[in-house]
């Protein structure tokens, strides 16, 4: 019998009611009295020297309050980078200044040249057209390898070339890896592109800055995954506003997928301009602006070599990757191709020797940063593609080759600096073979062939490191912040509970799943618990939601705070029941004295805490509210196995996904309905990357795909129903819930599955294709079949 509440129940989401009735409160729904609107004039040139900007005509236009340019921000801090990578020679990465409004030069299409603030959106937009400017166009660098040529144009004149860093990991492994590859019985080599993507949450970014002269208080309403991080970065590094004078609110947020982690220029601008003008200033991104100002994702070019011995055991992996940083370093950009990518190169396999080299490169493109999975999809893609290619070269079954090399004993220390605590990769592969009906594939292939279609099966495993913390480890790796999280459990007098959490829900359903945990712990109804998030004035602190960390890190803080609440409540109950504290038990919302029928209800204890007439005042304070910070000892390591069957039309190259199955191990699961939904969404984004999506620049740095007319988003008729399963559960050993995180898995595991399936389909038609770069559009697949 499935549970109807608490941990493991598929509780319906309470937040749905407001979203289904149009009563959500997204940032663009916020309108403040006397609000002004800003329109940003953005560069349509990728690289150029700003010779002249004349705003006088614009300033005279109706309704215009003020026009800001780079000059207005000369004394203001730039946007900070939150992660410093040290290169293979021990030197810090090159870190350019990142102005709020362009100063002297523009370095990518979409960079802000000027900002018009007016009393309506339309008037601001009209006036922006009256700004006169002269930009001397300079040659742009778009291709990463070209950007590293000695005579390449420099994105930043004050830096030493366009190389941000040249990272080697682990440098001490390198000689052993080179030797293992030299001595291998077989080496499979693959060169591939991990295509540049745009996260595209359906809600475009919005910022509303407000300022109160009465108490010198600034407020920023913003579409953020982590309001406290924005408060810290913007307050301390950009505008110089101390935390107690700056409130950041992220209300309902319409999806993030990483792109709303980062601190953006528009947030700083609206906060700054509201202080300057003494009126609220609002910006609502258009989708076209989003394409040229939201941080992009992926964009790696990689060569990977996999060495095997004569028995097909993996003996070494060596990779060389060029990673695009874009024109500036977005908040966490340097960490993505390094610590979120290199550390995952062992995958699910016992490969003793691994060396990863990453060259991060500046180009005249929008900054690139974390997008769902962030580094781990890039690692998984290259590894699972090269294993598939090796299996084909060696004529062995790709599933058997994987199983032969799986890590089977835990904990397992990889040669790339992480230790997997738990897992059972054979179990998820067994489950996958069952739910995907791998046995039935050959019959389905014959059916497809009878219709004139090529059918392929792709299978792979994946692992990811998430639940992003531990602070002492990430600090050693270059993070400039801690990555714990915090929760305050406030028990009200009549027993209901408000939980203030540092995690931020923008689709993940925390308002439903977090109360399930407390309901389980206290034996009270889920409806007695409310989650408060997204407002720095209400929440003690928190690092926000990304890296599949909310439940593993913030949920654990909530558990610790609840444990403190229970400990105190037991003291109160012992007093009321005139019993020893050690004999008090809490079950089903009642405190009982062990071995007796004496009991006191949860609500009577909480009332006593606030109306302490009969209360142990000499021992404990009144009130019932506890805060905990939680900093886990390790990452969590969700893992699983995915299978995809595709049909390829040999006439057109069109790929359709016929079946998709995912068997994941997320450790313990709080709400299986929500977990299913997270996996579905991740898989769809993986399908998007594999078949449809591509953020394209031309050689002059023009962004070619800047709208939904040009950037192909997955739609309802591009995807099938998915078979997902998370019944294989090896609980995480270092958080109290035993949870691992499920938000990114689908997007990490699925792109290689789909490409493996298409390659398999083409081989079944006699096309000996080694690889096709994503997205596998009909044109690319058709061309591959003609070679």
């Amino acid at each position, binding site marked *: 019998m499935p549970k109807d509440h608490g941990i493991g129940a598929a509780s*319906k989401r309470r937040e749905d009611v407001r979203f289904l*009735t149009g009563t959500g409160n997204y940032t663009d729904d916020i309108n403040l009295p006397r609000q002004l609107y800003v329109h940003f004039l953005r560069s349509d040139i990728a690289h150029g020297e700003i010779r002249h900007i004349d705003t006088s005509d614009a300033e005279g236009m109706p309704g215009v309050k003020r026009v800001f340019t780079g000059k207005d921000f000369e004394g203001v801090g730039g946007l900070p980078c939150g992660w410093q990578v040290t290169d293979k020679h021990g030197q810090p990465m090159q870190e350019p200044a990142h102005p709020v409004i362009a100063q002297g030069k523009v370095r990518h299409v979409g960079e802000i040249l000027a900002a018009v603030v007016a009393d309506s959106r339309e008037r601001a937009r009209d006036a922006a057209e009256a700004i006169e400017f002269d930009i001397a166009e300079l040659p742009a660098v778009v291709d990463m390898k070209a950007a590293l040529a000695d005579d390449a144009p420099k994105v930043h004149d004050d830096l030493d070339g366009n190389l941000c860093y040249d990272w080697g990991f682990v440098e001490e492994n390198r000689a052993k890896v080179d030797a293992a590859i030299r001595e291998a019985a077989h080496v499979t080599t693959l060169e591939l592109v991990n295509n540049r993507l745009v996260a595209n949450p359906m809600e*475009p970014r919005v910022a509303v800055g407000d300022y109160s002269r009465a108490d010198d208080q600034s407020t920023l309403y913003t579409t953020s995954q982590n309001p406290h991080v924005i408060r810290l970065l913007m307050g301390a590094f950009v505008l110089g506003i101390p935390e107690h004078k700056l409130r950041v609110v992220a209300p309902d947020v319409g999806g993030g997928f990483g792109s709303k982690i980062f601190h953006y220029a528009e947030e700083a601008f609206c906060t700054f301009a509201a202080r300057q003008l003494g009126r609220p200033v609002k910006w609502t991104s258009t989708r076209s602006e989003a394409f040229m100002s939201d941080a992009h994702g992926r964009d790696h070019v990689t060569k990977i070599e996999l060495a095997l011995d004569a028995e097909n055991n993996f003996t070494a992996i060596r990779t060389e990757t060029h990673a695009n940083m874009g024109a500036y370093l977005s908040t966490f950009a340097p960490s993505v191709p390094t610590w979120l990518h290199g550390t995952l190169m062992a995958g699910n396999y016992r490969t003793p020797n691994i060396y990863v080299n990453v060259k991060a490169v500046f180009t005249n493109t929008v900054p690139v940063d974390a997008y769902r999975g962030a580094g781990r999809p890039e690692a998984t893609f290259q590894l699972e593609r090269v294993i598939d290619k090796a299996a084909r070269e060696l004529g062995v079954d790709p599933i058997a080759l994987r199983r032969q090399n799986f890590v089977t004993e835990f904990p397992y220390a990889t040669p790339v600096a992480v230790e997997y605590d738990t897992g059972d990769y054979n179990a998820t592969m067994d489950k996958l073979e069952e739910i995907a009906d791998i046995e039935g594939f050959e019959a389905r292939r014959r059916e497809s062939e009878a219709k004139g279609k090529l059918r392929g099966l792709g299978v792979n495993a994946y692992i990811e490191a998430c639940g992003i913390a531990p602070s002492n480890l990430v600090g050693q790796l270059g993070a400039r912040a801690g990555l714990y999280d915090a929760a305050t459990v406030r028990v009200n007098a009549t027993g209901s509970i408000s939980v203030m959490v540092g995690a931020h829900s923008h689709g993940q359903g925390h308002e439903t799943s977090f109360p399930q945990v407390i309901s389980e712990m206290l034996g009270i109804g889920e409806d007695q618990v409310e989650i408060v998030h997204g407002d720095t004035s209400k929440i003690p602190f928190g690092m926000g939601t990304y890296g599949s960390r909310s439940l593993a890190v913030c949920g654990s803080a909530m558990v610790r705070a609840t444990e403190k609440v229970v400990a105190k409540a037991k003291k109160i109950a012992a007093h009321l029941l005139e019993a020893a504290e050690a004999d008090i038990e809490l079950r089903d919302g009642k405190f009982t004295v062990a071995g007796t029928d004496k009991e006191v209800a949860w609500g009577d204890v909480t009332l006593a805490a606030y109306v302490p007439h009969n209360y142990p005042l000499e021992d404990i304070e009144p009130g019932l509210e506890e805060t905990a910070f939680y900093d886990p000892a390790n990452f969590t390591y969700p893992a699983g196995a995915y299978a995809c069957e595709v049909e390829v039309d040999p006439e057109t190259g069109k790929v359709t996904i016929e079946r998709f199955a995912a068997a994941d191990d997320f450790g313990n699961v709080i709400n299986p309905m929500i977990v299913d939904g997270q996996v579905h969404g991740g898989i769809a984004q993986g399908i998007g990357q594999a078949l449809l999506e591509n953020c394209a620049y031309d050689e002059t740095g023009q962004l070619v795909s800047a709208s939904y007319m040009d950037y192909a988003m997955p739609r309802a008729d591009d995807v099938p129903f998915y078979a997902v399963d998370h019944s294989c559960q090896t609980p995480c050993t270092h958080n109290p819930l035993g949870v691992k995180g499920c938000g990114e898995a689908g997007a990490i595991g699925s792109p290689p599955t789909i490409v493996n399936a298409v390659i398999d389909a083409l081989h079944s038609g006699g096309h000996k294709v080694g690889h096709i770069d994503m997205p596998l559009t009909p044109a690319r697949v058709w061309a591959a079949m003609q070679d």
Partner: protein
Amino acid sequence: MTKVSMTVNGEAAEGEAEGRTLLVEFLREELGLTGTHVGCDTSQCGACVVHVDGKAVKACTIFALEAEGAEVRTIEGMANPDGSLTVVQQAFQDHHGLQCGFCTPGMVMSAAALLEENPRPSEAEIRDYLEGNICRCTGYHNIVKAVLAASGQDADRIAAE
């Protein structure tokens, strides 16, 4: 600015609009009905779908002045008179057909219009009809199930086939 009047969710609504004001801007900014969302600027995403004279319309594709005298229904007017969720809305909750909720108003309005036209659509017909509504969160799995369920079909069985 021109005066414009229409019926919105059964009530007379009046306001001012420029010639270039889109219906979605009028609904959100003039009438304060912020349930209808804007997710793109090329009429691709469908977050702004409302019903105009009974038909599903992307409210970014018509000007406010074109809706003069029209019967407009938005997500705010979808629930039953007692405030409870209608069958379609309830199916979205029951089947977890929404995550961040941003595309949801348009998705619900499109789904309701589909079921008006075709009370028992197949999976393929649902996917085809919703092609103009982009969702980035759900991978569409649970949205399609919700619409199947709202039409009285066994969504779990169909999804598992």
